[in-house]
């Protein structure tokens, strides 16, 4: 026997129409009353603080007496000075750049010609400073930065070993320091900070690009930092391309290769750093002198190197770099979605002057099995309107996850990329995360 509504409601079944009419009327009254209540003006007017609560914080710092600059992590005092110092080789020449995705461009201030808040993190800042003349020289500036991050000064010999690269038409020194941030005033005390910078000291004008903040934020933003550095140009043709050596003019030195150590075949970063210096970039692995088909291991992944691919110089934020027939392939790991699948594909499209993809086109892209999930393969070719020096084509694999994302970027001549496509896909499939 089935249960019927008569068991529950024994009254005679009410006629539908009057019932609904009544329900609508009564419900309407209730809804109107509730609507009025919900529309009541709230969120301003007079209110009371809670009753006082007393507690002893455990492990949290509570510091009073800090300046606004300290509180907000940006300096207002610079604004009292005249804007934009100039002079030097590029005197008067305005420097242009592309703000990395997710960063916020701040107004220029004092000597800061370009000024950024990094990835929405209030503590982490990055800025380009332009000063007339040698601005005190390379050594004093490097050691000033080291003092700010509670590290002892480097000797001239140690500074000479730091990695060099070409930046804005001149040599620049790459530094990467980690320690307790004392700040400009020497009064702050932030543990676990990292400072990454480029110093280009010239007789007539000096440029300093500096990113400083909590280590984890700076580490996660090394690629945008390099891309930003690469994007700087002054309209005179001095610029840098993030694609690296493969895309640079034939006589262009590699971007992060330390000229002295690269020749020796050792890791340029490690060779250039003092003994107690943390390694720069993704890997401290020595660079094999020749190509190898064996399994390779980086700091977070292992993989099988394709036949004929030669290991390139280790670079900041790259897990590994390979070079084959003038094309370059490298692997980058970023935190979170790293800007997302479509965002990164369209960033790459932008680099090659190609038309951005839409959501609908995204679904049609090839998928491969990668790192236990799905990797998206994309091929982008340079548009006719692209700037000179832009790579002819890009073959990319993107494995985007909520917590971290891996990008494999293969750039160079289209014919080479087509010929190496199978090897590239095998390489992507071979990537495995280390425990």
């Amino acid at each position, binding site marked *: *026997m089935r*249960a019927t509504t008569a*068991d*529950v*409601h024994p009254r005679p079944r009410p006629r*539908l129409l009057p*019932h609904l009419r*009544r*329900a609508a009327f*009564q*419900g309407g009254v209730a*809804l109107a009353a*509730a609507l009025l*209540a*919900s529309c009541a003006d*709230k*969120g*301003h*007017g*007079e*209110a*009371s*603080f*809670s*009753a*006082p*609560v*007393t*507690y002893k*914080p*455990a*492990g*949290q710092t*509570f510091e*009073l*007496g*800090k300046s606004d600059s*300290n*509180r*907000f992590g940006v300096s*207002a005092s610079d604004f009292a000075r005249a804007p934009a110092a100039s002079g030097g080789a590029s005197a008067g020449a305005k420097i242009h750049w592309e703000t990395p995705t997710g960063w916020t461009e*701040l*107004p*220029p201030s004092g000597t800061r010609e370009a000024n950024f808040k990094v990835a*929405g993190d*209030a*503590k982490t800042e990055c800025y380009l400073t332009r000063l007339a003349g040698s601005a005190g020289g390379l050594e004093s500036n490097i050691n000033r930065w080291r003092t700010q991050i509670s590290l002892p000064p480097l000797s001239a010999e140690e500074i000479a070993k730091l990695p060099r690269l070409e930046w804005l038409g001149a040599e620049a020194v790459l530094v990467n320091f980690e320690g307790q941030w004392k700040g400009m005033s020497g009064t702050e005390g932030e543990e676990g900070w990292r400072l990454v910078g480029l110093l280009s000291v010239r007789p007539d004008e000096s440029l300093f690009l500096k990113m400083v903040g909590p280590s984890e934020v700076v*580490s*996660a933003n090394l690629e945008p930092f390099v891309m930003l550095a690469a994007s700087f140009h002054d309209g005179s043709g001095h610029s840098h391309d993030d694609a690296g050596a493969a895309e640079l003019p034939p006589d262009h030195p590699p971007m992060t290769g330390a000229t002295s150590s690269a020749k020796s075949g050792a890791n340029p970063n490690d060779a250039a750093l003092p003994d107690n210096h943390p390694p720069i970039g993704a890997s401290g692995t020595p660079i094999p002198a020749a190509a190898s088909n064996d399994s390779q291991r980086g*700091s*977070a992944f292992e993989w099988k190197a394709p036949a004929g691919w030669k290991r390139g110089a280790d670079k900041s934020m790259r897990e590994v770099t390979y070079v084959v027939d003038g094309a370059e392939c490298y692997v980058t*790991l*970023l*935190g979170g979605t790293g800007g997302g699948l479509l965002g990164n594909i369209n960033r790459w499209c932008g680099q090659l002057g190609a038309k951005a993809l839409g959501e609908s086109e995204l679904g049609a892209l090839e998928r491969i099995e990668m790192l236990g*999930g799905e990797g998206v393969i994309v091929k982008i070719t340079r548009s006719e309107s692209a700037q000179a020096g832009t790579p002819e084509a890009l073959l990319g694999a993107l494995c985007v996850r909520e*917590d971290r994302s*891996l990008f494999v970027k293969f750039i160079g001549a289209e014919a080479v990329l087509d010929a190496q496509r199978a090897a590239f896909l095998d390489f992507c499939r071979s990537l*495995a995360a*280390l*425990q």
Partner: protein
Amino acid sequence: MKILHGFVDALSSLWLSCVLLILLALLTWLGTLYQVEHGLFGAQVKYFDSLFLVHQAGSVAIPLPGGTLVMGILFVNLVLGGIVRLRKDKSTVGILITHVGILMLIAAGFVKAYYSEDGHVTLYEGQRSNLFESYHHWELAVSEPLASGELREVVAKQETFFAAAPGKSAMLKGELPFDVEVTRFLPNCDVFPKGPMVGADIPTVDGFFLQARPLEKDNEANVAGAYITLIGRDGKRRDAIVHGASRNPLTVEYEGRRFGVALRREQWVMPFTVALDEFTKEDHPRMMMPKSFSSDVVVIEPGSERKVKISMNEPLRQDGLVLYQASWGPSNARPGDRLFSTLAVVRNPADQYPLYSCIVIAIGLVMHFSVKLMKHIRHEAQKAA
């Protein structure tokens, strides 16, 4: 009397139950679609925490009752229809118990919505804390350090000042030698120094101004800021900016006492301290997929310490709080890097209500179907006889 009868009839009818359940299904569907564009928190606030809402279907605006209102009416409908109008004899005892169980479930939802505290504590290995903070809500806190090393705090919840805007300021008073007037609240903004080349269309205070940003889809990513005016007992006014990402509070002095004023995520004090000894993360072999993660913590109480492992399905329950393993970071950490662990902390007085409700509902259904079965067997036996 006739009106009252009509009202009770309407509120207790099965038709109303059906309409409410259909509305709940509709809200769930629309809320899920809305979530794609506007994030979980936005969908929750608009479709489920509200009394009314306007759903935008293209260019057509559709007014709808919100989840809170629908659930409230459903509660009344169940009480009146299921308990008041239900025939009460031994054949309906099971149904009655089931109704009570469902009411308990809805009541648990209300208790959770209005009386729970929900946040997180994030620690690097070696760090400790006795505070947890909200993922979503802000508060304006005035703290006074005491000689004993303690902090004496008064706070104003976001609800008291979130609508502050020019001409609609919020005045906050408390046991303080000054009042705080919130003159403008921005739910997502940056704080910038004001330079000679920078135009700002809102006030500059001591060389800084707040610049509003569009709301982020993930509410946790929004960082609020506010313009405030501190008004001493002598009537002197001092303008200031407070921002949710500030490293330290604004320092003010009144009547020889120093106070810190901060806009921060709503936070609560735990009756114990949690210290993170070690965070362990294990990935599936050769993949970027976490298999499990756990935190070895020390729970410190006055006079005692004990070690506890908090893992994904094994929370720590203590003093009315539940600490779950929620997430970890930095997400791009490499083997050997220092990690942090985020523990979700919930104080929910109705934490176990759903379990009890399910037990009550199960008992009710078993009783009801047992009665029906017995009835059926007796009926069949009579037929056979």
